[in-house]
């Protein structure tokens, strides 16, 4: 499983303006991290996805976008895995 995830993360990081990505499992444990991102953030990413899913429990999990002055963090849960991509605006 690690090999395909590694490849996916490599692909994500090669996208324009992306500078980091993190993947967490359903417990918020880090599955993988690449670029300017920390393994410790996996828990927070998982918690944000969990909290957001409470808003409309019967809908598919939303795409969560957090925007600061010049960066953005895009989070989405898919099944048991939560992914976060860090991008420059």
């Amino acid at each position: 499983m690690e090999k395909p995830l590694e490849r996916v993360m490599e692909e994500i990081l090669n996208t324009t303006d992306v500078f980091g990505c993190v993947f967490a499992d359903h417990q918020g444990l880090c599955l993988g991290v690449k670029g300017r991102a920390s393994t410790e953030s996996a828990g927070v990413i998982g918690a944000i996805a969990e909290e957001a899913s409470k808003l409309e429990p019967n809908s598919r999990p939303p795409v969560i976008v957090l925007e600061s002055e010049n960066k953005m963090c895009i989070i989405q849960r898919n099944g048991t895995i939560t992914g976060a991509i860090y991008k420059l605006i």
Partner: protein
Amino acid sequence: MDRIAGQTGYLILNEEGAVVSSAGDLENDEKTAETIMGLVNITSMVDQKAFGSDESFKKISLTYENHCYIICLSNRRIHVVKKNLDKLAVNA
């Protein structure tokens, strides 16, 4: 708030998370207010390596298939707007 194109409801919360004003789909929606406060509170803990401790988020959006919630902090109030996405660009 009423004049925002495509909006189906809004919430204005104070810093404690209490509903100050609301309308439409989100009228007196305490449950949504509570979830949004929870979300706003954890966002301050997102990756320090990527975003730094002095950098704060100005806008949060939650996008579903046909609608979205946009959350903004302004004038010590949390503004939440629920919008329909039909015929609108996703990041409008």
